[in-house]
């Protein structure tokens, strides 16, 4: 394998991991509420700002700043659910979708108003910027760090969902609210936990995104948000492993497209949408999606 191919693969895997982290949030929320959380990309954006302020403005050492950002973003996700989605839970599905779009605009404009539309430079963290040389190619630490963290997170998440009481409750609530309540499950808590986890993962994605593409601005969540939603659909929305697979397909595909067919570089973003159209035509349930009739 040539050294540039290796470099491209490393980049693709690392971008794919970022997509995967954010895609999981879409898929988890869909699994439990049967709705697309259009504000998810903007929660990602807010997390990038939190990280920027934590490190650049308040000069918190980065490991602590990251933990703080993840917690704050999880809280933000819970706040959005509590105020904009929960009151509409028994309303028609369209109302809650429109509410999500509203939250998305609200967060974008809030960021624009509070932080100004001018892009801010994400602070450089020496640890991640260091490079290591492997097989003649020098690769940044962050490029390895992203997939490694993603794999660990994924393992923990699958453990929570398949082996813990909370995970069992989440699976039950995702199928049948009323019967879950009859078991004594407080579904509000379970849904809040889902938003906290999804938003926390988006925060991790945002932090690593900021390190790799060091620019923070109010609309930065829009395109990654759309792509990660597409990744979730490709993998089979509602399925966590599917979201990860979708994220990798998208990330690797995008990087390899740019690398191997450089004349198509301008179509980089279109790639995701073309893939979406293809999957919707040939396998509407996505790669790992279950065949259900009741999905809206």
């Amino acid at each position, binding site marked *: 394998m040539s050294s540039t191919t290796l470099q491209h693969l490393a980049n693709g895997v690392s971008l794919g991991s970022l997509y995967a982290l954010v895609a999981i949030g879409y898929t988890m929320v869909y699994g439990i509420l049967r709705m697309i959380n259009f504000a998810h990309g903007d929660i990602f954006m807010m997390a990038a700002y939190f990280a920027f302020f934590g490190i650049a403005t308040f000069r918190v050492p980065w490991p602590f700043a990251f933990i703080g950002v993840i917690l704050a973003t999880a809280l933000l996700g819970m706040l959005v659910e509590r105020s904009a989605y929960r009151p509409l839970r028994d309303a028609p599905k369209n109302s809650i979708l429109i509410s999500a779009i509203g939250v998305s605009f609200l967060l974008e404009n809030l960021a624009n108003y509070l932080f100004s539309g001018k892009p801010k430079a994400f602070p450089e963290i020496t640890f991640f910027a260091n490079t290591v040389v492997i097989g003649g190619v020098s690769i940044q630490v962050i490029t390895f760090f992203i997939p490694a963290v993603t794999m660990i997170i994924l393992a923990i998440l699958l453990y929570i969902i398949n082996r813990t*009481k909370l995970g*069992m*409750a989440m*699976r*039950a609530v*995702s*199928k*049948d609210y*009323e*019967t879950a*309540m*009859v*078991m*004594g*499950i*407080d579904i509000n808590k379970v849904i809040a936990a889902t938003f906290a986890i999804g938003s926390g993962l988006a925060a991790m994605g945002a932090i690593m995104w900021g390190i790799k593409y060091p620019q923070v601005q109010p609309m930065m969540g829009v395109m990654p948000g759309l792509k990660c939603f597409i990744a979730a659909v490709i993998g089979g929305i509602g399925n966590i492993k599917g979201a990860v697979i979708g994220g990798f397909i998208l990330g690797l595909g995008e990087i390899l497209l740019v690398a191997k067919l450089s004349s198509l570089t301008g179509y980089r973003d279109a790639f995701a949408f073309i893939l979406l159209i293809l999957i919707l035509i040939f396998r509407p349930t996505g790669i790992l999606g279950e065949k259900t009739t009741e999905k809206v």
Partner: protein
Amino acid sequence: MLRIENLTVAYGGIEALKGITLEVPEGNIVTLIGANGAGKSTTLRSIMGLVKSRSGKVMYQGEEITGMKTSEIVAKGITLVPEGRRVFPNLSVVENLMIGAYLRTDREEIQKDIQWVYDLFPRLRERSWQMAGTLSGGEQQMLAVGRALMSRPKIMMMDEPSLGLAPLVVKHIFSIIKEIRDRGVTILLIEQNANVALHIADWGYVLETGNIVLSGKGRELLENEEVKSAYLGKKKEKAK
């Protein structure tokens, strides 16, 4: 043990229950029979706090539980085997049982109770790791009953457990219901299959479009002319 006083429930503007009063004494099997749409499921759902009542009270062990959260009601020892079983299809058999014990924390006792449910329904033991969605209808009903028992209820409410089951399976489920009652669990049983229900019930109520129109001892209702023609009619024709 459980008393419903003048309960009224409305969906939108339409009253599904028009002020019903009924009582379930401790240790009894009480049945509520009625035709489709009479309001049977609504009665159970409002006891569980799943639908809000417009007026009236639900009293449990001398305490008013109207308006409490479902999880609080479950914690007090009331459980429901829902209409149409509603097992969690994406959970295994053993997970469905564990989730029935969601509010309990006594791990060892939970394990013992799982074994007890498996003794009641050996079919479930063989299928412990099977996804509940792939069980047959009868097995799902067994699982729904087992899952309800896992909360160690003081009173178990069952919504049409015989629905869509073969006579042999119905017989099995009903023998288990008696066994559960003999272990001290009070039962409120809803049925359209009036014949089977009235045979095992200590007391029965007949619900008609949101009103209780008749009540009496199970055996007496079996002999009642109105009940015979309205609810046991089919059975008589068959016997001919």
